[in-house]
């Protein structure tokens, strides 16, 4: 049996890690599909759905390259490029959150598009603007 708290490099842990990497990839592909579909429906680059789908896509790319010892094309890439892409995706996510917060505070809007918000809020805002 594999002890996940130990840092051993046995064959069983190698296979366990590979199967978990595949699971991670599948788990991250589903939200990517959901957010791409929502982004296409919203038809806006500025939408939260579009930005988070870019983050997930970059994250998945990093994960694939990080575990690239099974794929011949990626083995030519310099070492740690997968980790660097992961850092890039994290920075993009953080910048996205802070920019959305900054503009939401500045313009008095909500951070995530009003698809989820109550419609009452919208109508009250409109009436206040008029």
């Amino acid at each position, binding site marked *: 049996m594999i002890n996940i708290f130990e840092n051993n490099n046995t064959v069983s842990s190698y296979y366990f890690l590979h199967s978990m990497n595949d699971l991670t990839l599948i*788990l991250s592909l589903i939200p990517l599909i959901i957010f791409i579909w929502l982004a296409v429906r919203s038809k806006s680059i500025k939408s939260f759905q579009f930005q988070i789908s870019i983050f997930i896509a970059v994250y998945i790319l990093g994960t694939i390259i990080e575990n690239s010892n099974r794929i011949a094309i990626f083995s030519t890439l310099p070492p740690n490029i997968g*980790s660097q892409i992961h*850092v890039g995706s994290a920075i993009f996510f953080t910048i996205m959150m802070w920019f959305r917060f900054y503009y939401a505070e500045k313009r008095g809007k909500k951070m995530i598009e009003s698809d989820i*918000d109550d419609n009452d809020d919208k109508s009250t805002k409109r009436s206040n603007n008029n």
Partner: protein
Amino acid sequence: MLPFQYYNIIDAIVYLVAAIIPAYFILKSRNSINNNNNLRKLTIILIGFILLQVIYHIVGALGFRLLAKGFLEPLSMAALLLFGVMYLISTLKTKNNNNNRRRNLRHDKYI
């Protein structure tokens, strides 16, 4: 220290900085009277994903690769999946409500 451990530490710090925003919104929504329950749930799931990422990167930096890659990373992705599904459900619900309201308004006009 190995290079991938440096990257893990940078990742953890960057995700922690990102976690400030949803944490602020949860604290802010706690005090407000007009609570938007769906948005609050989504924010909690998002902060769960971010914090799991932070823990995953810290554990990875400490050298527990099996725990980080084998358990915490899939768990954080499961949180992201939950966020995506909840977001989709909320969006579809709101659109349905909008359509129903429009239909009712039209019906009222005809009457």
